[in-house]
């Protein structure tokens, strides 16, 4: 077999060209790809290292939105105090990824493209309404995060197409988010269930909009509109939280595996949705008019 090649294009156009070649794979942090190579599950023929492409390497907080380049390492996100203030849930999900060493390389973009049903950052991105910007031979397109994964390990990316980054709308005043996951230990494990919740409140503390997303309970992330609807109009009272939890449990379509039975996961999905909603409400109230 011909030797593998390594390319580090500095432009999106060149990266798209390279990705059209047989066996080409995007290399961002490499924390999934290189592990897959070692086990023989991936045999890249062309490594397209995208970390030298400015759009993919940029983390930039604008007036209306955050640009999160697909190859920005988790560590850079976790270090940003301003990003943590505006999107604490997204940052806590990012900070759950692996060890310090892994966070030095692993990217949120890679976490999404790897398309594990249990990816921690995916429900958190859905909760904050992040949009995926993709580029390919037919130009640019944008889809909401919840439409990006299409199954375990599968995404909407077409041949020669890559994820460039995320557009994340800046939350208004009195809005915040939270992400919780359950694992049987304290660190570095794969989610049994994950729940991301974002809420926005009016001046009286009443919820005007909400988003609830679950991970590890279906082949892809589940956005639970019924749970969000249960929160809207409430002030985070116990009855509204219980209704949201029940909706989350109903929306979960988990499998049974070594991490938990389907029944257990359905139950935990509700518990985590309720707790994440509680945290999001508390943070949104504390946020006052500061955003």
């Amino acid at each position: 077999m011909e030797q593998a090649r390594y390319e580090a294009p500095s432009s999106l156009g060149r990266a798209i060209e390279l990705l059209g070649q047989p066996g080409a794979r995007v290399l961002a942090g490499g924390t999934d790809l290189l592990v897959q190579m070692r086990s023989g599950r991936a045999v890249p023929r062309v490594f397209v290292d995208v970390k030298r492409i400015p759009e993919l390497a940029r983390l930039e907080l604008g007036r209306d939105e955050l640009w999160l380049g697909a190859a920005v390492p988790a560590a850079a996100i976790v270090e940003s105090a301003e990003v943590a203030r505006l999107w604490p849930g997204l940052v806590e999900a990012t900070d759950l990824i692996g060890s310090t060493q892994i966070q030095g390389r692993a990217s949120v973009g890679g976490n999404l493209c790897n398309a594990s049903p249990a990816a921690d950052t995916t429900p958190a991105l859905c909760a904050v309404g992040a949009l995926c910007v993709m580029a390919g031979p037919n130009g640019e397109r944008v889809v909401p995060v919840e439409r990006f994964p299409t199954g375990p390990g599968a995404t909407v990316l077409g041949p020669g197409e890559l994820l460039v980054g995320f557009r994340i709308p800046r939350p208004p005043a009195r809005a915040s988010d939270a992400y919780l996951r359950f694992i049987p230990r304290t660190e570095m494990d794969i989610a049994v269930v994950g729940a991301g919740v974002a809420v926005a409140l009016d001046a009286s503390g009443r919820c005007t909009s909400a988003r609830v997303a679950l991970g590890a309970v279906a082949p892809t992330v589940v956005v639970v509109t019924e749970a969000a609807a249960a929160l809207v109009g409430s002030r985070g009272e116990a009855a509204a939280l219980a209704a949201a939890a029940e909706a989350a449990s109903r929306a979960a379509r988990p499998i049974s595996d070594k991490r938990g039975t389907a029944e257990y996961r359905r139950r935990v999905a509700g518990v985590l949705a309720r707790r994440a909603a509680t945290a999001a409400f508390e943070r949104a109230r504390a946020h006052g008019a500061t955003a």
Partner: protein
Amino acid sequence: MKLHVSTTVNGEPAEFLCSAEQSLLDVLREELHLTGTKEGCATGDCGACSVVLDGRLVCACLVLAPEAAGRTVETIEGVAKGAELHPLQQKFLEHAALQCGVCTPGFIVAAKALLERNPDPSEEEARYWLAGNLCRCTGYDKIIRAVLDTAAELRGVTR
């Protein structure tokens, strides 16, 4: 055909030849003969191959060697100043924070990166930061004590 890579290792220019899929760990050990960086798992789980790449702590086993082109790499070999040990190395000796020693270079490199960012970590912060470094002789307690003692010494505090 081999790739020719120019990089900087421990402050000195370095060049090597590698194949596209070769890891930085492999090149450090086999081409540059810097064998202080150890291979444990080769899948990013154990931290024995911890190095600092462009200021970020990473596992050298999960970096492709050609990625190092034009970047800076810091390894365990750059930690001591000649014969003079780094305070972390000295404290690891004093606290007997090692048994077989295979995990030690990774722990020292990772702990140094911690103390450069946070000169006064709590025990919990140190334990979380070092959670990606595994020690199978079960020496964590001594390791954490050595790290916190080093931090205190570097801050000029007697513990």
